[in-house]
């Protein structure tokens, strides 16, 4: 725990300064997790504020110290999931509005952006974002928490209130889908390189 539970209790009782301290202790870590979950740096702060907003209005339900962090991760994954779902709906609506020619221009512009971007970090981010786009939002969030954030099955079980075996099955399936997309993309790259 990054903060003492007494501080959380004070925040729960309406102490604004204590709440500020709790947010300050966790915000960097939470913003990082959100960034990796949603893959859109421009919206990270908005989603982060939504997480702490939900925390503020649900603090009175918190009973013990040990559930605080899994609970905060749960709020984070829920907010990220909501964001991804909304984003997909907006994207679908926008794409259905575009004509074929506009789509080609959009594709070309995206390709140009990738060409211009020569940093390895950005390439990794884009590759992972596109791979994680192959699975549902729920699986994307779950897979990121496990494989990228490094949470254990036990911790994930506490966040999702699900048994470890059920999580293992879900994770395996999600990973298989991502692996399939990854292997296909590697094959394509190898063929182009020949």
């Amino acid at each position, binding site marked *: 725990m990054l903060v003492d539970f007494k501080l959380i209790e004070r925040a729960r009782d309406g102490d*604004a300064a204590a709440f*500020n301290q709790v*947010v*300050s202790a966790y*915000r*960097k*870590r939470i*913003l*990082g997790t959100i*960034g*990796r979950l949603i893959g859109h*740096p421009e919206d*990270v*702060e908005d989603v*982060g*504020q939504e997480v*702490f*907003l939900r925390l*503020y*209005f649900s603090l009175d339900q918190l009973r013990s110290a040990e559930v605080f962090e899994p609970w905060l991760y749960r709020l984070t994954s829920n907010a990220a999931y909501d964001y991804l779902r909304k984003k997909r709906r907006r994207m679908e609506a926008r794409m259905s509005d575009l004509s074929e020619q506009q789509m080609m221009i959009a594709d070309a512009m995206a390709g140009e952006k990738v060409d211009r971007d020569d940093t*390895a*970090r*950005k390439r*990794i*981010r884009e*590759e*992972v974002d596109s*791979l994680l786009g192959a699975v549902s939002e729920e699986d994307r969030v779950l897979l990121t928490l496990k*494989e*990228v*954030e*490094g949470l254990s099955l036990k911790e994930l079980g506490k966040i999702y209130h699900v048994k470890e075996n059920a999580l293992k099955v879900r994770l395996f399936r999600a*990973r298989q889908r*991502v*692996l399939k997309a*990854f*292997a296909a993309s*590697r094959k394509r790259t190898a063929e182009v390189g020949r």
Partner: protein
Amino acid sequence: MMDNQRYLQESDEALSALLASYRDASPDPEPSVNFMPQLWQKIEARERTSRVFTRLTRNLVTAALALSMLLALAVEISRSRGGSLPSETYVEVLADDNASQDLYSFEPVRVMPVYDRQD
């Protein structure tokens, strides 16, 4: 078949490495200076909305209570003024009402011709 399996295994390892490097490629960002002020603005906005709803609900409940008390009072007053409520059915009341009416009001109207006056 064997090659394909080996290829998948290699891909699996490469995927694990890629996902691990994703964390390093996207480090935790520094929050902007506006993070806390904006957060408190959002908290206050939501509190305001919930206060409005609470007040509205409370007012509606009070109004409903006052209305039901008024109705109860009106029923009580009408009961005390008009004595006991009729024990007959609606049809019986209608039949009594018809019987008491004067019959001349149901006589056919006689139309008398009006002649033009001839001077």
